[in-house]
């Protein structure tokens, strides 16, 4: 609608020189992503990476999930185990993952996998954990270090969301946008990418995805993580109450973590689908190129009709 949401890069409003003869589309570079958002994004990416791999290390200390306050050891929701194979088998151990009691053979990936050439009993494989060997103590050290980085970074970002009006300006959907959801789903399925200035703004599905992550998954990660702390449960008994217990919180923490991995996969896919160079430039330098049709070039208030 209004173009006020787009801050034109004051230093470099680049328009391609008007071509002679046939009018050509114009490329305009906009300053799209503010520096605070970019810094937040990269600190977030770094801390979430280390939180994931150290979190899987911690999970490996007891690769089972339960519901409630206490562990019902015989009835896990999810369990990764190793069983010895009969003598003479190719592998000494087989990995089995139980989902609600149903066994799945997951040798090599979950339950049993090789580390330095030896097949060992371990939940997630060594290449998904930090440190690579089984080391709960250091897994916890890394996890809590990056948890602090993630939380402080997140708190500053939330302040910016509100105070800097980033939430209202760029993320909060309008009623009109909500009505476009079906069309947007169709556009996504057909790989129809928006052009012109529309490409510089978040589309409705993108807004909803970011909101689910920002206001849903990320706060849930922190809260379910805190619920696993006996000290925090003493300070805030509402935490274990809200999540149905420490073991439930641990299960939810695990589910949210893999949901974030799912978000990450789609996020990266979309970066490539929408143009990796342009998207990466935008999140690193803030500058994002859009293409305007030649007769539409006035709409930025910058160019002259060609």
């Amino acid at each position, binding site marked *: 609608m209004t173009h006020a949401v787009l801050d034109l890069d004051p230093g470099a409003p680049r328009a391609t020189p008007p071509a002679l003869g046939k009018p050509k589309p114009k490329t305009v570079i906009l300053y799209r992503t503010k520096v605070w958002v970019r810094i937040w994004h990269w600190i977030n990416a770094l801390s979430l990476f280390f939180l994931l*791999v150290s979190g899987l290390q*911690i*999970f490996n*200390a*007891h690769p*089972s999930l*339960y519901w409630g*306050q*206490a*562990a019902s*050891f015989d009835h896990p929701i999810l369990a990764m185990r190793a069983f010895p194979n009969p003598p003479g088998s190719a592998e000494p151990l087989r990995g089995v993952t139980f989902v609600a009691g149903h066994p799945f*053979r997951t040798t*090599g*990936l979950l339950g049993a996998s090789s580390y330095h050439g030896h097949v060992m009993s371990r939940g997630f*494989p*060594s*290449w*998904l*954990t*930090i*440190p*690579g060997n089984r*080391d*709960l*103590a*250091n897994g*916890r*050290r*890394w996890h*809590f*270090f990056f*948890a*602090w980085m993630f939380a402080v970074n997140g708190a500053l970002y939330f302040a910016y969301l509100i105070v800097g009006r980033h939430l209202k300006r760029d993320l909060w959907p309008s009623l009109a946008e909500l009505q476009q959801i079906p069309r947007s789903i169709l556009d996504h399925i057909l790989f129809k990418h928006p052009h012109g200035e529309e490409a510089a703004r978040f589309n409705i599905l993108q807004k909803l995805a970011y909101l689910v992550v920002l206001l849903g998954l990320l706060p849930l990660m922190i809260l379910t993580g805190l619920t*696993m*702390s*006996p*000290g*925090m*449960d*003493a*300070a805030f*008994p509402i935490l*274990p109450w809200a999540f149905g*217990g*420490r*073991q439930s919180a*641990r299960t939810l923490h695990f589910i949210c973590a893999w949901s974030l991995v799912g978000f990450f996969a789609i996020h990266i896919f979309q970066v490539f689908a929408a143009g990796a160079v342009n998207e990466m430039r935008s999140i690193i330098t803030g500058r994002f190129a859009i293409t305007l049709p030649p007769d539409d070039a006035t709409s930025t208030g910058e160019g002259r009709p060609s």
Partner: protein
Amino acid sequence: MSGFSVDRRAVARTLAGLGAATLSACDKLAGSPPVKKAIYSAEVITRRVQRLILSPGQLAPEFKPSDISPAFRANGSVAVDDPAYKNNLANGFKDWRLEVGGLVNKPLSLSLDDLRGRPGRTQITRHDCVEGWSCIGQWTGAKLGPILKEAGLKPAVKFIVFYCADVIDPGAGAHYYESIGLADAFHPQTILAYAMNGQPLTEPHGAPIRLRVERQLGYKQAKYIMRIAAVDSLKPINGGKGGYWEDSTGYEWYGGI
């Protein structure tokens, strides 16, 4: 079926190659002393912030008798391989004495009956293992605070150390030990538990007494306690980090998270 499993392994191997390259670089990074120092500094922030948030008398959540775990897992040492301990266990610890010493005005030597006669507390609490699981149990024991008051702590005292009878790794030979700060030592739920679920403590759970310090993780709940010492510093004791796992693997001394 086998074709599928070969493909899956090939995919896993490719991912493994990529992952291993990144994470072995991380492992190298993790091994460097300045990185380790920075990473380990998070414990100080966690401890200070939790101290700020947790008021001294704030209790850990307590539960109903119906919440008690049917099978409370025993972890760490589940037996003590020592003839003197076995003798004590066989005769109900009637000749056993808990020594309370260190920087105190009046060292104490307490029998199990002495402890049963001291101000006590029964609580149903959740035991949170550092590995991630939890069990709920009922603990009855003598409150640590009044015992320390009776012994009279000297002003320099900063930590209470618990020396245990068990040895986790016979190769290394060191006895288990743990330590806590004074805020937790005088917390109303901090007890020297001699009974669990209404029965005298069994060997797997730390007979004759184990520590319950309910706002911290399982490895802080020292079992088979033989001696308690009030000290001004943890540095001269064993590895200097205040506990067996703290010294040997790098667990945080503050087990509140």
